[in-house]
């Protein structure tokens, strides 16, 4: 009995050493071969036609982001993906998820501890009346057609690209914080590491490579959707052109966001 166990262990040991050697060789090869190029070739294009785009701006595309409130489960995966993608300093949020709870006396309770980064794993128990409704609202940059941040930036460091993205040139930003004040949606912050303005970019660097934004990629329930409105086969086109309950945040601000919400409730600010 003991001998058979010893034999098993020695076999395991041999297998283990083989695996370590194999891993080392494979790892060394990965270091030699340019990894980036290889990666992109092997990842299928997630936004059709994007890899044919050349030049500084994306032409012939009009991007939209849709958040489906009726789907979001408040798991916080999007927030984790975003924080990992950009190494967002603690206490600042490029995206966050809010939890709305409405009681039977129509009181609205909202919270977003740590921006929802840890996921909403337990229900709120501090409420005085029975709960009648609850839902989650993910927030991110609204990529306004008339962005207040671009309007107020004194040096043009925040700009709107021809393809509709609102981006920040951190080599030009003076860190005055005027854009932080001007954004009606509070999606901006001054990055404590770079001392410049920072915010969600809808993962512009990924989109340029034909990949979906990180948060869209990881959402387990497809509550976050991204696509080209000029592509009539895209999901975002279909949602915005079919009879859905779709709205934007703070429409009276006049900023015309490109971020749309399916099932947006009047309680949401």
């Amino acid at each position: 009995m003991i001998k058979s166990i010893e034999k098993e262990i020695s076999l395991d040991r041999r297998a283990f050493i083989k695996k370590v050697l194999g891993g080392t060789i494979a790892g060394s090869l990965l270091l030699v071969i340019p990894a980036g190029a290889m990666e992109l070739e092997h990842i299928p294009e997630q936004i059709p036609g994007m890899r044919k785009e050349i030049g500084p701006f994306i032409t012939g595309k009009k991007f939209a982001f849709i958040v489906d409130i009726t789907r979001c489960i408040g798991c916080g995966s999007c927030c984790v993906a975003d924080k990992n993608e950009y190494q967002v300093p603690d206490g600042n949020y490029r995206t966050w998820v809010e939890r709305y709870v409405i009681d039977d006396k129509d009181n609205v309770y909202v919270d977003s501890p740590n921006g929802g980064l840890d996921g909403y794993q337990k229900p709120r128990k501090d409420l005085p009346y029975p709960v009648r409704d609850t839902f989650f609202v993910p927030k991110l940059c609204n990529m306004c057609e008339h962005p207040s941040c671009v309007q107020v930036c004194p040096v043009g460091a925040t700009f709107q690209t021809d393809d509709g993205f609102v981006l920040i040139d951190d080599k030009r930003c003076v860190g005055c914080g005027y854009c932080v004040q001007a954004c009606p949606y509070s999606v901006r912050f001054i990055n404590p590491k770079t001392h410049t303005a920072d915010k969600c970019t809808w993962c512009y660097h990924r989109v340029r490579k034909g990949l979906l934004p990180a948060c869209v990629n990881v959402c387990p329930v497809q509550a976050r959707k991204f696509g080209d409105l000029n592509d009539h086969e895209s999901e975002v086109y279909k949602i915005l052109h079919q009879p859905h309950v779709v709205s934007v945040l703070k429409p009276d601000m006049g900023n015309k966001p490109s971020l749309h919400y399916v099932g947006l409730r009047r309680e949401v600010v």
Partner: protein
Amino acid sequence: MSPEHGAAVATALTNFVFPNDLHVHWSLMIVLYPYITGIVAGAFIVSSLYHVFHIESLKPVSRYALIFALAFLAFATAPLLIHLGHPERAMNMMLTPSPTSAMAGFGYIYSAYAVVLILEILFIYRPTLVALKQKSTGGMKFLYYLLTLGSDNLSPEALRVDHKITAFLAAIGIPMACTLHGYVGFIFGGVKANPMWATPLMPVIFLLSASVSGIAGIIFSYVLIKRYTGKSIDMDCIRTLIKFLWGCFILDFVFEMLELFSHAYMATHHWEALRDLYVGPLYWSFIVAQVGIFSVIPFIGLGILSLVKLSDKIVMKWGTILSFMILVQVLLMRWNVVIGGQLMSKSERGHAVFHPGWFTKEGIIVSIIIMILPIALLWLLSKVFPFWLDDDPAVERQSA
């Protein structure tokens, strides 16, 4: 549970601040920036009351007001530079400005105003500077040579030209001073995302509060300097300044209250959040301090000093105390607008808290230093530009 108690619990629980709104980005430095700029604009207006509108009783402070404005103007950008994340890129605002930005114009307006103020001082002081150049030796002589731009010509013809230039500069200086501070108000008033700031009254309130802070600063420092140096105080001048201070403060205080009243009366969907702000985090600094103590008392006090016949001693003593209270009132107003506006989250469901640090980059110690620097510069300038006509060698020579 009683309904009242339930409501209280509900209010406490609904305090939701957007995660990025927990941090107050514009802190003490941005409180000081409009405060200093306002003092500059207000002091210039005092000088112009004599130079343009020929209010003769203000002659004793007409030149001092200009130097006082210059001392503060020199440090108006200091808090901004300390605040910027990248001060080394500050000049980009003037080199590559974005034309749509309400902030991008500041560099130009500030610089143009600085040029007008410096030229005004050099031309008004020219006979004095020429006389001082003749009296002085060494480095001071060279300094006066530079300040007179090398010209000793004090012929009646040359002085007439000087006078025309100073009248012109003072005349364009008034709209520029108004633009400078009205514009600073617009930097806040143009932020539509902030319901507390976004009111067309904001530039008006900023401009009026600038005027009162400038006049109050002149009264307070004039009396203090004269008392300290043991020189006589021109009571006619003080009484006139108090009347102007009262007049401007009536407008200022009324507009400040009208702004609040408009918000309350219209009671749009923003009002609930604004009201919670005023009765919550701003209760002590706004309702009690700014309005209750530092507005109501000077409002009544200045009225009494202006309307009732009182002895010189009482007018001087209370004029100085009330002027100091006005200076505090304006500082409180800047705090309540700049900090208060940011405490209300754009979620309109709650407010953040803010306590300034003592030793941080934008903290209390740095703020105190920034407020001392203009006073130190004013002392240095007094060594070059005599503030008062009775110390002026040119005046002595003319009268001799």
